[in-house]
């Protein structure tokens, strides 16, 4: 099961968890990204590339499902305006064994950050700026390339 959703609606973790737990796979791992309240951001705006974003996420999910023989993978990414404390992204993976679910979940969030066309704009007080890409994110994504190429 692969489910990808890019939407301006708040992310409903309970419903998504119920979907992936319904697979009765033994192990479910999730990652939830939340707008941080501790660094002065009052508003976060997420822009995306309609069509290309969904395709990129579906490709990432399909590669993870194939590599780790997952029972299921869900990626939900919010777009538009959101406030501190709100969820930006949810990745959920299900597998027979815990290492597969945990590794696949970590891989998906790392790769999503560098391979899916989203752009963040932060508002702090009166200042609005586009967030710069981080070298550390590319390093995190790169370390999965070796893993995924070992079949």
């Amino acid at each position, binding site marked *: 099961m692969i489910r990808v959703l890019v939407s301006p609606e708040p992310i409903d973790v309970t419903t998504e968890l119920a979907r992936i737990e319904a697979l009765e796979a033994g192990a479910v791992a999730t990652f939830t*990204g939340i707008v941080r309240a501790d660094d002065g951001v009052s508003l976060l705006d*997420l*822009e*995306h*590339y309609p*069509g*290309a974003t969904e*395709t*990129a996420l579906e490709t990432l999910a399909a590669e993870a499902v194939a590599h780790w023989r997952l029972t299921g993978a869900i990626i939900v*990414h919010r777009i538009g305006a959101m406030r501190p404390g709100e969820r*930006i*992204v949810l990745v959920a993976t299900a597998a027979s064994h815990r290492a597969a679910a945990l590794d696949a979940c970590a891989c998906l*969030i790392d790769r*999503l*950050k*560098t*391979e*899916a*066309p*989203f*752009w*963040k*704009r932060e508002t702090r007080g009166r200042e609005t700026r*586009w*967030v*710069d*890409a981080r070298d550390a994110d590319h390093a995190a994504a790169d370390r999965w390339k070796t893993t995924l190429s070992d079949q």
Partner: protein
Amino acid sequence: MDLLYFAWVREAVGTGHERIDLPDGIGTIAALLDWLAARDPRHAAAFADRTRLRAAIDQRFVALDAPLDDAREVAIFPPVTGG
């Protein structure tokens, strides 16, 4: 050909979408950016530092020297920052 711009590239160019007739002799995204920059100062400013730009052809990520071939949609944008 449809041109799409995202994030600060969109803001710098002044639009998120424009339609152009690609002139003969423009074979790569880099050449397309040169041509657009020569036509308009906002495009020129947006495309001044190519190291800050990424591109997609027909929704597939490609390098800036990628051939345009029969591209229908070209997107220009900064490095992605989702998640």
